[in-house]
């Protein structure tokens, strides 16, 4: 007896129909604009008109000869690497703490998650107030502790402002990394840890020789997302310094925004944003490798 197959039983037809809206949305509103972003970087398009003329490499030549752009590119790299280094250290340490049992752990976990939950722009405005040139509570505390004798103009000095940006980025991303590392810790087979204890390995040896190597794929996932979130973030720098003082703390997204949207030069804005691609490609390739690696490991 052959089953009577109607349209309502064809899994391929149903599957395609149910997937189609999502695919169309993603292709039309992510895929096409993504291609258009790259195309725009070779054009002289401006925000005021619908004119679209070919500009060749002119936008790229312009920004590569522009010290503000080169500084922004360097800042993007410094902020991303610096904040992610901090994130890895803070997150592995915080995960070790949150794994232990102690009084008030639920409260500690709740507070540790706060920086990740709060909207970037609101966190950034709070930090702007914390780093205020006249009222900075950090300066007051350092002075009260006798650690500071002069005065720190956190957002008025290029080097200090960059440090402030790194601190805020690390602060907002380490909770997310902590939770990911915690998830990884709980998936380490208990026998391995117990075997290490039986063999007489202390806390530090267990951490560095047993757990961290096993955690590597998970830490990598945390770092990869962290790189994407930091390198492509606009809000922190836009609100904290606005790229100042004197355009010294721009990162790629804020400069692309200033030139492309506020300055209406879509072509140059797009060309600046295209320099985010290397960050993203590195991340995407690493993720694919990681996915393949763990798949092989699972078999």
């Amino acid at each position, binding site marked *: 007896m052959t089953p009577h197959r109607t349209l309502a039983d064809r899994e391929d037809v*149903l599957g395609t129909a149910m997937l189609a809206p999502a695919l169309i949305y993603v292709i039309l509103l992510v895929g096409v604009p993504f291609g258009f972003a790259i195309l725009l970087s070779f054009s002289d398009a401006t925000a005021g008109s619908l004119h679209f003329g070919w500009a060749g490499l002119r936008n790229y030549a312009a920004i590569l000869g522009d010290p503000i752009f080169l500084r922004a590119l360097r800042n993007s790299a410094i902020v991303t690497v610096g904040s992610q280094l901090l994130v890895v250290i803070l997150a592995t340490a915080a995960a070790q703490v949150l794994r232990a049992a102690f009084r008030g752990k639920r409260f500690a976990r709740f507070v540790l998650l706060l920086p990740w939950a709060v909207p970037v722009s609101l966190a950034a405005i709070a930090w702007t107030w914390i780093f205020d040139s006249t009222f900075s*509570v950090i300066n007051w505390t350092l002075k009260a502790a006798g650690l500071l004798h002069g005065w720190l103009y956190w957002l008025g000095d290029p080097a200090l402002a960059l440090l402030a940006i790194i601190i805020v980025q690390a602060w907002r991303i380490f909770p997310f990394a902590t939770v990911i590392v915690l998830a990884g810790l709980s998936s380490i087979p208990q026998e391995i840890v117990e075997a290490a204890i039986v063999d007489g390995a202390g806390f530090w040896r267990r951490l560095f020789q047993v757990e961290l190597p096993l955690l590597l794929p998970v830490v990598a996932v945390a770092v990869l997302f962290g790189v994407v979130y930091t390198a492509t973030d606009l809000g922190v720098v836009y609100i904290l310094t606005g790229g100042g003082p004197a355009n010294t703390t721009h990162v790629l997204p804020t400069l692309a925004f200033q030139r492309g949207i506020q300055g209406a030069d879509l072509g140059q804005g797009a060309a600046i944003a295209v320099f985010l691609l290397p960050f993203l490609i590195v991340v995407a390739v690493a993720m694919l490798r990681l996915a393949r690696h763990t798949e092989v490991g699972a078999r």
Partner: protein
Amino acid sequence: MKRVALYAAALGFVVFAGFPFYWMLITAFKQNRDLYVGASDSGHIPWIFNDPPTLEHVKLLLGQTDFPRWVLNTLVVVVAVVVITVAVAVPAGYSLARLVGRWGERLGMGIFFTYLIPPTLLFVPFSRLVSLLGLQDSLGALILIYPTITIPFCTWLVMGFLRSVPWDIEEQAMIDGLSRLAVILKVAPRLIVPGILTVVVFTFTLVLQEFVYALTFISSVDKMTVSLGVPIALVRGDVYHWGALMAAALFTSIPLAIVYNAFMDRFIQGFTMGAVKG
């Protein structure tokens, strides 16, 4: 000794993570004469209330700014984006997990990767698209664009969630004579409810947090969302009303913190799928 180190480390992390929120709290309720004392005055301790707390900043925020309006705008966008995301991402996730077979995984991965394409790369082309559609400076632009972030992530979440739901119930329904379509319409929705809840929560948090697209498309103060209006429009010229600003930041953070505390683990599953087994 070990306990002391543990508590010290826990305290350190709580202080580092929580300090800006404590600062929002104390700023939001301090009187101006207690608030605006220069930090070089070492005799005035900024960490505590030196004068009794006040509600004047909260009254200013709720009565004389557009904050209530921004809350309303945000809710409008949340509802619209939730409807679009659930309608598009839930069927897609079901399809990838149950219907399209072997290439479902690859396709799912492909859709997830578009989540990595950042707003800061897309805002330039979108600004042209939005003006072509006549949506500049309207909530419509946000409702159209936000699903580009929520759909990829939520499709992936639903797909992963369904993998953990056993086949049995749907299979039994088909053996009982329901068509595949009838199973999808009548049986599957009940199974996906927890997945849909996660989608709703993720979308809610994303809309509350998003800043880049809102900054790019919205210029009128009365069209702003909370996360745009507070840092941009509450600052009048060079005058920062820090009390009102911090009150707004605090009020917006509280619901998000509660939601995150409850749903963090589910979101994390979406990020670590593949890298964490079991």
